[in-house]
């Protein structure tokens, strides 16, 4: 027999707080993905442009981010920047900044591969009707790249959502932090962690399902 008596009352009582925490986590992930995509696109174009120093600078950024534990980056931005005199961010902004830089590094590689996989014929067709360079990027290259990379963008969003649990380390009141607080206040260990886990799981599946619909809508490239 399990020597543990479940008591879900505390969870029901805290339900609004829990849902708020969940939504905060989703918001953090979506915001970071959006900013990360912008960083990633700029970096991907930077890398394919033939500026050697720019290529090197972006490569360094990507390698640094990808080889540093995320938690360490979070601490660095949250505790380190104020030490250096940069006190512009509260803990949520600081976390979004970190996660955006983290997402940007990964999206840079995703978009770079996407750009490389676009057949040159499309660009030539765009040239042939007289589109200017930036128009070719805007109306042909980017939309095609977006469709090619959509599955990777979906996967990144789901993993960013799970990474938001690390925000608990700097007391951002997202799901993990909230679960830990319930745990600390009520000693309902199993209820708190099981609820949090179930919500992470359900949300990840929901995001995947929504994005699958989006992918189907945009999968016009065979």
């Amino acid at each position, binding site marked *: 027999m399990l020597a543990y008596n479940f008591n879900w009352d505390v969870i029901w009582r805290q339900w609004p707080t829990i849902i708020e925490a969940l939504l905060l986590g989703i918001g953090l992930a979506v915001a970071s993905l959006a900013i990360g995509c912008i960083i990633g696109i700029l970096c991907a174009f930077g890398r394919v442009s033939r500026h050697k120093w720019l290529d090197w600078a972006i490569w360094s950024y990507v390698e640094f981010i990808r080889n540093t534990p995320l938690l360490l980056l979070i601490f660095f931005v949250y505790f380190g920047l104020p030490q250096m005199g940069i006190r512009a961010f509260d803990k949520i902004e600081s976390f979004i900044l970190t996660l955006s830089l983290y997402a940007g590094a990964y999206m840079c590689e995703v978009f770079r591969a996407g750009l490389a996989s676009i057949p040159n*014929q499309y660009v030539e067709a765009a040239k*042939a*009707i007289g589109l200017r360079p930036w*128009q070719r990027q805007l*109306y042909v290259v980017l939309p*095609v790249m977006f469709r090619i990379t959509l599955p990777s963008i979906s996967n990144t969003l789901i993993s960013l959502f799970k990474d938001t649990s690390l925000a608990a380390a700097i007391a951002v009141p997202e799901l993990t932090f909230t679960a830990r607080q319930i745990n600390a206040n009520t000693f309902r260990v199993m209820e708190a962690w099981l609820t949090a886990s179930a919500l992470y799981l359900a949300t990840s599946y929901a995001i995947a399902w929504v994005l699958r619909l989006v992918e189907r809508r945009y999968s*016009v490239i065979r």
Partner: protein
Amino acid sequence: MQNHMKPNATSAATGAMPLLRAVDVHKSYDRLEVLKGISMDVEQGEVLALIGASGSGKTTFLRCINLLEEFQQGEIDLDGEPIGYRMTGGRRRKIPEAALSAQRARIGMVFQSFNLFPHMTAEQNVMLGLTKVRGKPAAEARDIARHWLERVGLAERRGHYPFQLSGGQQQRVAIARAVAMEPRLVLFDEVTSALDPELVAEVLGVMQDLARSGMTMIVVSHEMLFVREVASRVVFMDGGHVVAQGPPQELFRDPESERLRSFLGRFHGVFS
């Protein structure tokens, strides 16, 4: 054998300016010289067929006209205006990208592999240049696109994406996309050679229709029946040179050039 260093005599005789004039165009890929001094005039309304063996430089020449390739020597003029390059301070310089784009917009191109924008419907493919390059309002661009899609026989397919269309249908959309821009000249590079045999006729039919309507066209093709029927003049290229040219009946009936004779020999049946 004709002198291929001099533009052909027709325009010189009439004194009128040809629509397109190429003079002594040389093009190399690294050290491989692919065009070795191509000169030709294309008159308004003319359908010029470019024929020649594989590797003779036909595609390369078309790509030079549309500035998809750089060329190192010679000049190509469209309506008397040099294309792609300008002499400044005695040096030959490539013109800026924005000006290149404006020049390309005056020349249509249809590719062997269709190259439709995969994320756009047939109608959107035709509209893109009209709105973004020609600056037409969307409603007008849509009307023009529908007009041309109907003209190539695809009125009901305008909402289809490229992957939902057959090769022949895609190629007809690509033709509509090129001609809707009202270019001065349309270049066709073996536009039927990627198609299944039963789809070739529908595309050639559209091209014949355009030719009759007075469109100026340069057509690279191995469809000799089509060339004989539709071309007003045939230019035979070999090894990066223009070796012979003339109206198809004359050129095909008794080819002076030995190279042309052997090239045409591969298409026996067509000329008997």
